[in-house]
């Protein structure tokens, strides 16, 4: 029984990690809290669901299309709108992305209605050591973990990844070294949206998705990034898995209706006691 809770916690935790890693990356590199992140997750999920159910594509292809669409969308949004406020005080950038989110979310409610939709995949289930796992959910988990790992690897081993890290460390120095900082910002924002889309596609396998959920996803991203340390990829992974397990066990200890509160309360404690998070080193302000 405990093993089942751990398995469920890790399953949802890996989706959370994928959800948070893009948010965390945008925060770390652009120094911006992207309030639109929850809506990006929902939008990515809808693209994936529509490609699978309307166009009859395989779920994997659909998820990849969702990722590509959201990367382009994120890139454009950063280039045209966010880039104007990158160096403005945080209050300005925060409120701007909030305004953009109201717009995007309202458009989604109009376009998709508030009816929950999900990606129903029937691949059966497997039983490992007394723990029942649905194959589709396992696939979603693998997709989320592979993408998170790939992002981590690319940040260290590709030219663009190293440019992103350089900008994150010191954007003035990076500019002096000939890095096109604006382009790095836009690519980073695109990657953030891409990871959100992947998380959305994977989430749609586990939960029914509606545009009204964007606030919930944003809240998860907040909690995970603070738990793990804002701006860090391994932090998002650790924070995501920790939150998944915490919610799973919080549901046993306090009842499922308290699971969000447990997450937020823990986040406030971590903020106060150790603002750099569980694995983060240094806070950006």
């Amino acid at each position, binding site marked *: 029984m405990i093993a089942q809770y751990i398995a469920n916690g890790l399953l949802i935790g890996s989706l959370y990690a994928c959800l948070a890693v893009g948010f965390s990356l945008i*925060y770390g590199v652009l*120094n911006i*809290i992207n309030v639109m992140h929850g809506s990006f997750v929902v939008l990515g999920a809808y693209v994936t669901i529509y490609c699978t159910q309307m166009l009859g594509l395989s779920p994997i292809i659909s998820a990849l299309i969702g990722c590509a669409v959201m990367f382009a969308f994120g890139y454009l949004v950063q280039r045209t*709108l966010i*880039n*104007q*406020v*990158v*160096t*403005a*005080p*945080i*209050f*300005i950038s*925060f*409120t*701007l992305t*909030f*305004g*953009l*989110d*109201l*717009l*995007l*979310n*309202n*458009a989604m409610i*109009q376009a998709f209605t508030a009816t929950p939709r999900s990606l129903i995949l029937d691949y059966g289930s497997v039983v490992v050591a007394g723990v029942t796992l649905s194959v589709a959910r396992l696939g979603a988990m693998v997709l989320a973990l592979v993408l998170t790992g790939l992002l981590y690897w690319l940040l260290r081993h590709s030219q663009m990844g190293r440019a992103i890290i350089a900008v994150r460390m010191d*954007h003035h120095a990076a500019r002096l070294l000939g890095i096109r*900082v604006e382009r790095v910002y836009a690519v980073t924002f695109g990657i953030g949206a891409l990871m959100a889309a992947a998380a959305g596609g994977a989430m749609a396998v586990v939960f029914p998705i509606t545009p009204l959920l964007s*606030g919930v996803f944003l*809240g998860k991203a*907040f*909690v995970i990034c*603070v738990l793990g340390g*804002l701006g860090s990829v391994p932090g998002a992974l650790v924070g995501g898995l920790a939150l998944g397990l915490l919610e799973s066990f919080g549901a046993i200890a306090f009842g499922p*209706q*308290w699971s*969000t*509160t447990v997450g*937020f*309360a823990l*986040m*406030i404690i971590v*903020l*106060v006691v150790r*603002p750099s998070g569980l694995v983060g080193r240094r*806070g*950006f*302000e």
Partner: protein
Amino acid sequence: MTAPSSTLLRGVSVLIVCGAVIAFGFSANNYLLQAGTTLAMSAALCLAWNVVGGFMGYPSFATAAFFGLGAYVGGLTQDAGAPVFLAWAAAAFGGAVFAALLGSVLLGLRGHYFAIGTIAVVEVMREIANNWEAVTGGAVGINIPILPGTPNEVGIFFYLAMWAMVAIAFAITALIARSKFGFALRCVRQNESAARMVGINVFATKVAAFVISGLMMSATGAVYASMVAFIEPKDVFNVLLSIEVPVMVMLGGAGTIAGPLAGSALYVMLRELVWVNFINFHSAILGIIIIAVIYFIPRGVLRIFSRRRRLVPDGAK
């Protein structure tokens, strides 16, 4: 203009404004009375937020937490049989105590961390109100006794009560702006370590500002709760309120005395127009208003004609 005549002028204009506000309350139709009450509520919250967000420069999104706390404390006190004014006083006291506790925990954080922390407080409070059914009635909400009198009399009572909140908040703001405390707040906004070096007790100053702000927000929330006579968690602990209030202040001009008033008046008028004409797109249009404010008048309408209008300080385009 010499100092005494300027004081006299100010006194006379304050009297005229008060007279106009009261006369409006007694002559307006129901819709206008309602709009005037909403405007007063927004203005009171904006003035309260401005102490922390404007003068001190801390991006607080805890407005909805204090507002909701005040609404619940006031509502529950009234439900226990207390008269309205006692309930409001209790809410103000509760808000002050909560602000002192919360402030001493959160005000150690800065920038994004402070912003995230204050938002999380709103979320936690809403969840608690949702789940603690024994006290708050849970997601169903609670009913609060309706005041005796005709609907019109009650409407005018709450209209005047909300404007009284504005008057109190405005007086507090004006006092702070001129006092040594206001100077200390501005020092904190500029540079905390420098403020500490010139002998300002930075932490006490920050907590005091948070307490004043929280007290006013909670009292406003309690007046709102008595007015609508029914509150539920998702209504009073609404993150949208936490965002709207700073946007209104920014629209008018943060850190000034008149900015919150001008901003809330403009915003509430815009919102009324939007509500009437585009009911389905109302949050999208609020989004557009926010975006327009940020891009075109980030320093507020009161400073629209001043010299520096650029949004981004250094040459990072």
